[in-house]
């Protein structure tokens, strides 16, 4: 199927609305977990009697080894994943944007040093770095956010730097210089807002990526400490009894897949809408 620019935009608008709406619903569910979850996600049932109950009337998604309600744990797990995803996207994007802005606007030596730092960071596999730090220090939610941000800002820095360089060489920035505006003012009012589109797109994409990494860490036992429910850890717990007791792994697995898919769809739709090359929305010269 091929779509013209207008078709691409219509499609993107629809995807964006749907994706953003579902993400918002999911976030509200996570936020209201204490109210919405039918059971305490950490309350242990009677061992044996409550273990591995199949999905049914009392437990919509069954129970795990310790008799804990899987549906309640999935809802609570959304809190951790979305919080880490959004937190890292915010922190890493801010850091990356700051580095990219300075590098792109200053150019020369500053640019060289910052971009070599980016290359260096990208040359070290992220998983090693994260596992090393989380392995040495005790894993906790703030530590995960910090470590994942510190290892996740480089792509943003590159994207922002490229956008800033292109904008800074453009006619309206030259005109702003010719009008005698101060450089920091040009950077803040004229360059940064025009680099916002790629920044927003990369930040949205980062939410999904981060949730994947966070759950992979949890799967490896390096995520948020027990008993806080985390999807990755739940998948791992169910691995031993899979596929006989499928619901313990499948429920959090589907939650991960759906959440990441929603983030990526929203990010792609945003890119299609914000990229000027994807077509004009009519009007204008």
């Amino acid at each position, binding site marked *: 199927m091929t779509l013209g620019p207008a078709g691409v935009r219509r499609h993107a608008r629809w995807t964006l609305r749907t994706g953003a709406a579902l993400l918002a619903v999911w976030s509200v569910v996570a936020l209201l977990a204490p109210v919405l979850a039918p059971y305490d996600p950490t309350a242990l049932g009677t061992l044996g009697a409550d273990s591995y109950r199949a999905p049914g009337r009392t437990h919509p998604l069954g129970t795990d080894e310790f008799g804990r309600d899987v549906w309640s744990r999935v809802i609570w797990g959304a809190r951790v994943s979305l919080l880490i995803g959004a937190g890292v996207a915010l922190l890493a994007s801010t850091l990356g944007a700051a580095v990219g802005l300075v590098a792109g606007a200053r150019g020369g030596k500053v640019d060289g040093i910052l971009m070599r730092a980016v290359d260096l960071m990208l040359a070290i596999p992220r998983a090693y770095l994260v596992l090393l730090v989380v392995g040495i220090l005790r894993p906790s939610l703030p530590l995960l956010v910090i470590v994942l941000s510190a290892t996740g800002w480089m792509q943003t820095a590159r994207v922002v730097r490229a956008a800033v360089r292109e904008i800074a060489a453009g006619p309206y920035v030259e*005109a702003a*210089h010719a*009008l005698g*505006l*101060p450089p920091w003012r040009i950077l803040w*009012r004229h360059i940064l807002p*025009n680099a916002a589109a790629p920044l927003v797109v990369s930040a949205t994409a980062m939410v999904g990526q981060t949730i994947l990494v966070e759950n992979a860490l949890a799967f490896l036992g390096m995520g948020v400490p027990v008993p806080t429910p985390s999807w990755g850890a739940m998948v791992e717990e169910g691995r031993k009894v899979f596929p006989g007791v499928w619901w313990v792994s499948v429920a959090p697995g589907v939650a991960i897949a759906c959440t990441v898919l929603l983030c990526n769809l929203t990010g792609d739709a945003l890119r299609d809408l914000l990229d000027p090359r994807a077509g004009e929305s009519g*009007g204008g*010269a």
Partner: protein
Amino acid sequence: MTRPLLEVDALQVRFMTELGPAHAVDGVSFQLDAGEILGLVGESGCGKSVTARAILRLVEPAGAIVGGDVRFEGRSLLGLTPAELRAVRGKQIGMVFQDPVASLNPVLTCGDQLREVLKAHHTCTAAEAQERAIQLLRRVRLPDPERQAGSYPHQLSGGMCQRVALALALAGEPRLLIADEPTTALDVTVQAQLCELLLELQAETGLAILLISHDLGLVAGLAHRVAILYAGRIVEYAPTARIFSAPQHPYTRGLLRALPAIDAEPGVFAAIPGTVPHPAALPAYCRFHARCAERIARCEHEDPVRRAIGPEHDVACHVDLDPAPVAGRPGGGP
């Protein structure tokens, strides 16, 4: 005689290119008096835009001003600190560019952009800035200025954008306006309106204008004096009437002949053969030599020096050393 407003003196601008250092501007000198309109004319690549940008030091850091001087009201602009330079840009000297839509920030409204400039050069409250912004838009004859102040550049036509760009350039109340091909991107009718506006502004406020253009017709209608630029040098400099009635330099004559006349035979264009030499590979002798129909032996050995041949009329050419100077010839007049 009073001091000229702007003096450009043997200005040299160098860019580093793959072919080596290129002198895009190579010893350009001219003066501009208060209230005067000077046309700077030449083909693409002759250095006219670089000259305009070099006055406000906008060629840095890609290019470097390596020689000569630019003085505004007697003060050299080349030694200014960045802060002093910012006080000249927009406040003493305003500038408008070729592409009016692209030279406005797409994410700010016209009013926002005007207020930015006003705040940079004056201390004023938000309400004063807003009022002043609308006054400026009215002064450049933008229809419905109150409403258009809230418009984004993409909502306006090219001609309206150029009026907004002009309002921005005038916001600091400069005494000199540099207009770099201000009408090239516009329709002919809009061009004419903009020219009228420039003349009005010049008459009302005594604004001096440095008009950069490749369009001799436009320059004829606006400028008091004309400087013809070729390969980074001024080859002829004279009052407008004289450039059109008695052009001396073979290049000027070629440019005038190349203007399509309305009564000319259809399909006949008097193009000047060849192209401008690359600024990194300029000959040591006359730069127009290869394209000149009137060249003499001397042209291939010696670089012509600019010299006065009449009142306020300079030419850099060997040919009219000929005892019988060539007068304006048929097709040479406007």
